[in-house]
C-alpha cells in the first residue's frame, strides 16, 4: 500500500466548499508527516480552473458533462476507477450529503474499510489515528486507522480552514475513464432552491434556538417572545422542522443553515454533531438543557441545567426589565 493521502473535492455552483479546503490543509499535514504526496480528486464539468485553488501535489481530474452535477453512481464509478491501482493510505472526504453517499458505496465496491463522523486525525509514533463522534456526540471513539487504504468522512468544521493564499500549483492528471460510461441508472433532474423564508437566520444577531426539548408547538410563541425582546429570531434543530412546527429556512445544521450570530441561545437541544456543525462559530453560545450530560455543554460557553419551558418566560421578563433600565 502507498503512503499518499487523497482528498475528494466538493464544489457547489462553481466554488470549492469549505470542507474541501479544510481537508486539503489536514491532508497536507498528514502527507508531510509520512513524506508522501497529497492528491485531490476533482470531479465535475468545467472545473479545471478550481485545481489552482488546491494546495495539493497532484489533482486527479474528471472534467466531463456527465459530471456537471453530483450523482452518487457516476462519482463512485470514477473514484473506483481512480482508486483501483493507486491504493493510497487514506482517502478523506466530507461527512456531507456528497461524501456520505460515496463513503459507504466505495467501501463496499473496493472492499476497503471506512470511518464516518471523524473529528480528529493525527499521526502518533508513525501510526495514523482517527477519532469519531457517535451516539449524537455522547461518545468519542478513537480508532487506529487500518493498514489497508481507508476511507474517512470528516465532519465539516473539524479542522481549521487555511488562509485563502495557501493554494499551490498542482500537477493535473486526467483520470482514465471509458469514452462512454456504462449506462447510468441515476440522472440529475434539477436543483431545488430553498423555499423563500420570512427571516434570513444567517443575518440575525441573536438566535433563540429550540430543539426537541421544546416538546410541542404550543411552546413556540414563548420562544418568539424572548427572541423579540432580544431583537433576534427563532431557529431550530431538525426534529422541530421535521415535525413541521417551523419552516425549513429556520433549520440550523448539516442540512440547514450555518449561522454565526453574536448570541446563540439553545433550549432543549442535545448538541448532536449535525446540529453543532451549523452553529459552532457563534460568538456566544448559551445552552439550557435538563440533561447535565448533554453534549451541547461540551462546546457551549455558558450553560444551565434546568427546564427550558420554565426558564424562557423568566428570561423574557428579566431581559425586558434590563432593556427598560437601559432605556431609562
Amino acid at each position, binding site marked *: 500500500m502507498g503512503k499518499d493521502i487523497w482528498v475528494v473535492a466538493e464544489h457547489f455552483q462553481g466554488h470549492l466548499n469549505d470542507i474541501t479546503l479544510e481537508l486539503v490543509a489536514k491532508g497536507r499535514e498528514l502527507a508531510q508527516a509520512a513524506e508522501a504526496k497529497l492528491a485531490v480528486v476533482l470531479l465535475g464539468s468545467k472545473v479545471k480552473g478550481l485545481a489552482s485553488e488546491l494546495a495539493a501535489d497532484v489533482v486527479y481530474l474528471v472534467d466531463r458533462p456527465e459530471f456537471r452535477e453530483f450523482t452518487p453512481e457516476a462519482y463512485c464509478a470514477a473514484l473506483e476507477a481512480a482508486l483501483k491501482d493507486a491504493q493510497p493510505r487514506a482517502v478523506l472526504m466530507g461527512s456531507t450529503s456528497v461524501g456520505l453517499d460515496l463513503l459507504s458505496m466505495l*467501501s463496499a465496491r473496493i472492499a476497503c474499510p471506512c470511518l464516518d463522523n471523524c473529528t480528529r486525525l493525527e499521526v502518533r509514533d508513525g501510526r495514523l489515528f482517527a477519532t469519531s463522534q457517535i451516539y449524537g456526540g455522547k461518545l468519542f471513539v478513537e480508532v487506529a486507522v487500518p493498514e489497508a487504504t481507508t476511507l474517512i468522512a470528516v465532519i465539516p468544521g473539524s479542522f481549521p480552514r487555511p488562509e485563502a493564499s495557501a493554494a499551490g500549483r498542482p500537477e493535473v492528471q486526467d483520470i482514465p475513464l471509458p469514452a462512454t460510461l456504462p449506462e447510468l441508472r441515476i440522472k440529475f433532474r434539477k436543483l431545488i432552491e430553498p423555499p423563500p423564508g420570512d427571516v434570513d437566520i444567517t443575518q440575525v444577531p441573536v438566535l433563540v434556538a429550540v430543539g426537541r426539548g421544546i416538546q410541542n408547538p404550543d411552546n413556540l410563541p414563548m420562544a418568539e417572545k424572548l427572541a423579540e425582546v432580544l431583537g433576534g429570531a427563532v431557529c431550530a434543530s431538525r426534529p422541530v422542522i421535521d415535525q413541521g412546527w417551523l419552516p425549513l429556512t429556520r433549520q440550523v445544521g448539516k442540512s440547514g443553515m450555518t449561522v454565526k450570530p453574536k448570541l446563540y441561545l439553545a433550549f432543549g437541544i442535545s448538541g448532536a454533531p449535525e446540529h453543532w456543525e451549523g452553529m459552532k462559530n457563534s460568538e456566544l453560545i448559551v445552552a439550557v438543557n435538563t440533561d447535565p450530560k448533554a453534549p451541547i455543554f461540551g462546546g457551549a460557553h455558558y450553560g444551565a441545567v434546568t427546564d427550558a419551558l420554565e426558564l424562557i418566560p423568566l428570561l423574557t421578563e428579566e431581559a425586558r426589565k*434590563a432593556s427598560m433600565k437601559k432605556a431609562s
Partner: protein
Amino acid sequence: MNIAVLTKQVPDLVEGVEIDSTGKAVDPDSIRYILSESDDHALEEAVLLKERTPARVEMFSLDTGEVRDTLCMALAKGADRVVLIRTGLETLPSNHTVAKIFASVLQGLSFDLILTGVRAIDDLDGSLGGLLAGYLNLPYVGLVRKVEMADGTSMAIVQKEYPGGYAAELEVKLPAVLGIQAAEQPPRYVPVSRLRQVMKTAKVEEKETTAPEPETVAVERMFKPEEGMGATMFSGTPEEIASQIVGLFSERRLVR
C-alpha cells in the same frame, strides 16, 4: 411494487450509554434499544408510497434489542409482512457485517425499492444503505426526503438534501436502495389500543442467518466528552439562573 424496509435497533440516548471495563466498547447492560430514528422515517415513507401506489411493504429487522414490539408497530402502521432476522449475535455488529447479513437475506427476493434510514447514531463504519447497494451493485441515493414513483414502477424521483435548504431532484432506475433522511410527514402515531389489538394476531416471521466473519475496525479507546466541559455553568433556582444569564447579556451589551 415491492418495498423492503431494513431496520436496526440502536441505544436510546435518553437512557444514556456507559463504556464497559475494557474502555473500548459500550456496556451492553447500560443500553435500552429503540428503533433507529431515520429507519422509522424509512418505514413512514414506505407506507406513504403504499398509500399512493399499490405496493407491498415488508420490514426486516436484526434481532438486537426488543424487536418484536417494533415489528408489531410496523404492522399497525401498514407494513404487510415483518421479518425478524436471527443472527445469533449478542451485540449489534458493524455496519459492514449488518449490510452483508441483509444482502444475504435479500438474495433471491425481488424488491423494487429498498429503503433504510440514512444514518444511525451508532454508525462508525459507514451507513447501511450505501454499503448494501455497493454489495448488491444497485444504485444508491442517501439523505432522501421525498420519493415519488414514475413510469409505473421502473423509476423513482427522489429529493436529496444539500446544506442551506437546497435539494437535488434525481431520477433513479429501480431496483435501487435509498437512504431516507426524513419522510414527507413525521412518522405516524399509533394509539396503544390499536397496537395491542395488532399484537394479538400479529405474525412475526423469523429467519435464521449465519453471521459472516465480523468486519470491524480496531477501537483503541472510547471516551465521553467531559461533563459540562467547556461551558461555565449557572446554577440556582430558575429565577436566579434567569437573572445570571441576563446579567451576562448586559455585560456583553446584548440587551437592547
